[in-house]
């Protein structure tokens, strides 16, 4: 077990196995899909996010104020927790390939006990200047199937280095230095 798993007391079933490298541009096609199902959101998780982000809006951490002043029927999760889950889905797959843009819109309140399932789908791939770009439509649904978040992400994926396949290295092409 790596020491960070001890440091954060990570549940063994949630440890992410290391990858050698992220995906390549040519391996991804329009329509490719990602998904990540998260355990139900807890009040402790919301409190920890408040601590990590410094966002102690009482709507998220104070039941009385959220209910009586905010009129929201009780506390609810920061919208950025859902975005964080979607980001996790993306980086689990992208590994060390960089994101260029990531956006989400919070559509529905997520409460303690709600289970969020994130999804992503490649909608476009293109080359811009020297960058190979892949666009995802992303989002999240609660346990009722209702859309809680929607958004987009753009990632930068390299193409594998150009090489001449062995079967194309015909003797006459090598002799005439067509293949260097």
């Amino acid at each position, binding site marked *: 077990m790596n020491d960070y798993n001890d440091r954060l007391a990570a549940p063994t079933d949630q440890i992410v196995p290391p990858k050698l490298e992220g995906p390549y541009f040519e391996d991804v096609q329009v329509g490719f899909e990602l998904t990540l199902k998260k355990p139900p959101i807890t009040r402790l998780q919301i409190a920890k996010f408040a601590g990590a982000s410094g966002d102690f809006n*009482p709507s998220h951490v104070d039941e009385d104020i959220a209910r009586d002043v*905010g009129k929201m029927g009780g506390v609810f999760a920061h919208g950025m927790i859902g975005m964080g889950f979607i980001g*996790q889905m993306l980086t689990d797959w992208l590994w*060390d390939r960089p994101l*260029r843009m990531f956006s989400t819109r919070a559509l529905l309140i997520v409460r303690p006990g709600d289970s969020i399932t994130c999804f992503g789908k490649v909608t476009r791939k293109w080359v811009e200047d020297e960058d190979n770009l892949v666009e995802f439509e992303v989002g999240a649904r609660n346990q009722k199937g209702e859309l809680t978040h929607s958004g987009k992400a753009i990632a930068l994926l390299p193409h594998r280095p150009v090489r001449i396949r062995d079967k194309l290295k015909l003797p006459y092409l090598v002799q005439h230095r067509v293949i260097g």
Partner: protein
Amino acid sequence: MPINFNALGAETPWSEVTVTQRQIDSLCSCLEDYNPLFLDEETAGTSANGGVTAPPTFINCFRDYKTALVLSEAEVELPLLLHGEQVIHYYKPIKPGDTIWHKIKIVDAGRKASKTYGELSFFTVLIKLKNSDDERLVEATQLFFVRDK
């Protein structure tokens, strides 16, 4: 109106912060995101980033003076505030040990219709993170709604 529209254009000063692994741990722990690229120098050191980097939503952990901006300038009652939308643009990875400068500015404010809550007030903040060489690291806009009382 539950918001002071004269807050448009108000901004925080640049604020300096040194990124720590502990900050990244805290965010990863609450998201239950145990990707070693964010947590383990040995694994992350073999990646294209050459070391640990922060997760994509780490920009949410930079909020010096943000509460003051929202409370004192926009005069928002926090329990009426709802997060609407966030757009993040990435320019360079953020790593533990980096010294980062950040500031937050209110770049839009007004009234608009919402499907769920009817007409309500909104404001948008722009968050900028740069390094000590004045290079852009991450920039984000966040749209907030403020419900009427």
